[in-house]
Every structure is written in structure tokens, then in C-alpha cells.
């Protein structure tokens, strides 16, 4: 692999972010990180370490107080479909059918109905929801709604996927199923992914590389490469390699000095 030679697709350079207000809150401080093309990077950190703030900066909804963020070489100013962002909250559009949700990004891009339909057909198949194409989201489980949100972003063919704890609200079993679904989706349509989570195992199972953030104000505390073979499965979760990295990450995420 010549991954080291290629320039990063996404980079943050000395980024600080402070929420203004009566008691200003420093969410991020001098944070730098890079995501290479087609890399699956997990950002791991405790609740309230500024993970969501970081994603909102990459998505273009917040401007760093200090430092700079760049995507594909140019500075990020404002949101856009090239950086597909899946929110932590449920944000599937409840007034649209599953198919309309999947096609919304293409509609915004001005893609013709027939072409939109072809893409949504493909994603309905990929996430196994063909039977639910004309159902409203209220008929879906929380996990399936989240998969529609991920697929909805992928349907616009963005350069980059920003996922904010997409499976945080799910029970352990559904969560594992959704992780497999996401891993499957990713292996078939390689994309650069920045995945934010507070779950060590989830990060290990999905990512090529893990960045650990410190508690607020968030900055990079440690890096780990996850050199586990793909496709990953239940076997991966109990392999010695997995457990060895898990121990290292676990120690790094423990209470700091």
C-alpha cells in the first residue's frame, strides 16, 4: 500500500473550538488529525470530549475558533454533499418514505427521476429494505432507520462519510448486527470514513485506525493501527489479535495521568 505517500483527504490542523456564552466552554484544543483516502478512521473518546464538535466542524456547520480544516486540499467553508454527515440523533425524514429518504440527496443534486430510482433500488437492496420502499420511517426499527440514514448519505456518492455514534442508542445485539451491515456496506463501496464512538470494541471491529481523544478540551491522546484481516466477523471479535489491540486501547482510554 502506498497509503503513506498519498495526501490526506481530510485534515485538521491545530483546531481549537470554544463555545461562546456566559461560561465559554473549550470543546477542542490544538487538535490535529488526518484521514487518508479510503481509510476507516474511528475517533474514540469519552462522552463530552468534543467528538460531535469535531464532526460538525468537518461537516461545515461550525468554524474552528483557531486552526484550519481542509478536505481534498481546499478549506472547508459550509456544509455540502461531498462530506456526508450522519447525525447522532435520529434524523431520517419521517414525512418521506424510505425510498424518498434515499433519493433526497440526489433530488438536491438535480438528478433525473429514473437515475434516482436506479440508485435507490440499489441501496434498498444493499440494506435489505426493498419491501419497505414505500413505508414511512415510523414502521422501521431504530437500527434500520439509522442504516437508511447511512445509505441516504452514501447514495449521493460523497468523498467522505462522517458518522456520529450512529449505533449509540441501540441494544448490544442490534448494534452488532448494524456494525456488520455497515462493515459489509463499506467493504463493497470503499469510502473514506470518520466514525465517532465511545465504544472501544465498535471502533476496533470497524476501523483501520483509531484515534483516542482526551476528555474536554479534546485533543489527540493516542493513535492505534488496527491490522485485523477483512472481512471481519464474530471470529474477529474473539481473535487474539483483536484482544491484544483492545488491551492497548483500553489502557490508553483509561483515566489519564
Amino acid at each position: 500500500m502506498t497509503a503513506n505517500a498519498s495526501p490526506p483527504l481530510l485534515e485538521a490542523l491545530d483546531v481549537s473550538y470554544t463555545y461562546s456564552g456566559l461560561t465559554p466552554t473549550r470543546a477542542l484544543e490544538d487538535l490535529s488529525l488526518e484521514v487518508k483516502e479510503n481509510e476507516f478512521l474511528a475517533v474514540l473518546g469519552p462522552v463530552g470530549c468534543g467528538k460531535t464538535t469535531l464532526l460538525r466542524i468537518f461537516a461545515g456547520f461550525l468554524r474552528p475558533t483557531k486552526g484550519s480544516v481542509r478536505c481534498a486540499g481546499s478549506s472547508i467553508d459550509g456544509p455540502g454533499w461531498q462530506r456526508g454527515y450522519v447525525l447522532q440523533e435520529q434524523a431520517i425524514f419521517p414525512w418521506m418514505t424510505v425510498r424518498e429518504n434515499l433519493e433526497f440527496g440526489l433530488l438536491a443534486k438535480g438528478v433525473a427521476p429514473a437515475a434516482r430510482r436506479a440508485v435507490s433500488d440499489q441501496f434498498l437492496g444493499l440494506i435489505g429494505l426493498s419491501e419497505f420502499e414505500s413505508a414511512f420511517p415510523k414502521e422501521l426499527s431504530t437500527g434500520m432507520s439509522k442504516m437508511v440514514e447511512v445509505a441516504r448519505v452514501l447514495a449521493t456518492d460523497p468523498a467522505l462519510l462522517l458518522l456520529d455514534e450512529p449505533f449509540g442508542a441501540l441494544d448490544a445485539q442490534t448494534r452488532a448486527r448494524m456494525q456488520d451491515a455497515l462493515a459489509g456496506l463499506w467493504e463493497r463501496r470503499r469510502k473514506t470514513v470518520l466514525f465517532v464512538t465511545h465504544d472501544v470494541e465498535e471502533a476496533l471491529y470497524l476501523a483501520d485506525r483509531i484515534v483516542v481523544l482526551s476528555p474536554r478540551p479534546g485533543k489527540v491522546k493516542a493513535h492505534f493501527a488496527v491490522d485485523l484481516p477483512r472481512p471481519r466477523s464474530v471470529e474477529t471479535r474473539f481473535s487474539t489479535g483483536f484482544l491484544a489491540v483492545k488491551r492497548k486501547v483500553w489502557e490508553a482510554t483509561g483515566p489519564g495521568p
Partner: protein
Amino acid sequence: MARRSLLWILSLAALIVAYTLVARAISRPDVVPPAEDIAGAFAALLGRGHQLPASDMPAHHHHSSDQVDTLTQEGVTLQASLAVTTARVLFGLVVGLPLGMLMGLLMGWSRRADDYLHPIYVLIRSVPPLSLITYIMLWLGHSEAHRLIPVVYAVAVTAVIPTYHGVRDVAGKYVVAARSLGARGRLLLIKILLPAAAPAVLGGLRYSIAIAWMTAVGAEMLMAENGMGNLLVGGGMWSSRLQTRSDPAVIVVGILALAAAGWAMDMLARTVSARLTRWAT
């Protein structure tokens, strides 16, 4: 369904019987008119009172009073009065709702617009709609304007807050998701903002309808020669109203008609809301 309509009729009949018994027991026809008086006034106000062949009916069943006579002389009927008031209510809703929603949308969407508009809104919303009547008359004289403007105003002011909260508190995450998918401008407004705010706006619609009826009837009671408010105060303008003795049967008929009209419009609003937000429940 048939069972339910039967229950409806039964409970209505029971209500009439109970009312008749209570009216007998109280025996104060000047404030609690007997049911047959109410029915008589109802018939008279529909314009049928004078058509009843007097010979077939016992004399006391032919309802006549000072107020009924005045109204009949002026050619006032219940259906025409209700039609006029309904028209004013609808005008208030059709003009007032977009105005109120636009203001709520602006305030909910832009923090800066909220900063400028909110204090003004709080100031104007405490002005009772009917207090505008005399001022509007100063500008426009005795016209339809001082019956319609208070209704428009009341509806608009009531529609602001539901829209504001719908946009500000509900739509936020959907707007973020949609903008990340590349949506802007009109697409964002029509496909995201309005549907996201719809349940709140439609919930507010029911309040707007109620307030429109209250304001329209109030404005008519004060300054109008037609509509339900005019019927309630006995027709004519101020000078003649003071000379007309109120007929309790007419007033009860008026109140019942207003209740029925309000109920019907609320039903309609609920049906339309349910249809528009089928996705939500």
C-alpha cells in the same frame, strides 16, 4: 357506525329532556327559556316562523318576541348570519395564517430575525384584537375593515408561536441532515422546513380557528349590522339595540349555532391535519 349515531341521537335527546325538566323546575323563562321557546326561536330565525299555519298550532308555540320581531323586520336569518360570520372567520384564517406563519418562520429560522422581531411580537400580541376597532374606524370609517382586520390580526398573532417552535425546536436536526445532503433554498423550505414544522403548525391551527370565531363574533357585537354577533345583540345599531328587549331563546339559539359551527370547523381542521401528517402517527 350506526350504533354510534344512535348513541349520538339518544344522548342529544336525553340532554333536551334534562334541560326541559331543569327549565320547568327553575321556572325563570327570562333566563332559562323552555325548550319549545328555543325551538320556536330557531324556526323563526330560519325565516320559517311566519309560515306556520297559526290555526294548526297552539298559540304559545308560535314564537314571537321583541328581538325576533326586530331581527325579522331587518330580514336577519340564522343561516345568513352564520354564513357572514363564517366568511369573516375564513377570511381571517386565509389572510392571517400565512402572515403569522411567515413571522414564526423568520423568527424560528434566523437568530437575528428573532432578536429583532421577538420583542415587537411580545408587545403586539398583548393588544386585544377588539381594541383595534375604533382605531381602524378612524382610518377607514364604518366599513368591513374593522370587522376583518381584528380577526386577521388575532389569527396571525396566534399562529406565530407554534410555527416558531416547530421550526426552531423540531426542524433543526432535519435541516442539518438535509444541508449535508446538499439541499438549499426552496427545496430546504418546502421539503424539509415546512413538513418538519407541520405538526406544530397544524396543532396551532385549532387555536387559531377558535380565536377567529371569538374575535369575529365580538367585532360583530360591537360594530356590525350582520353576522352572528349582530343576531345575538338583537340587530340594528347601538341606539335601537338599547330599546330592544333581549329574548333568551334567541341568545341560546345563537350560542348553540356558534358552538356547532366551531365544532364543525375544528373537526374539519383535525381531519385535514390527520391527513397531512399521516406519517407522524
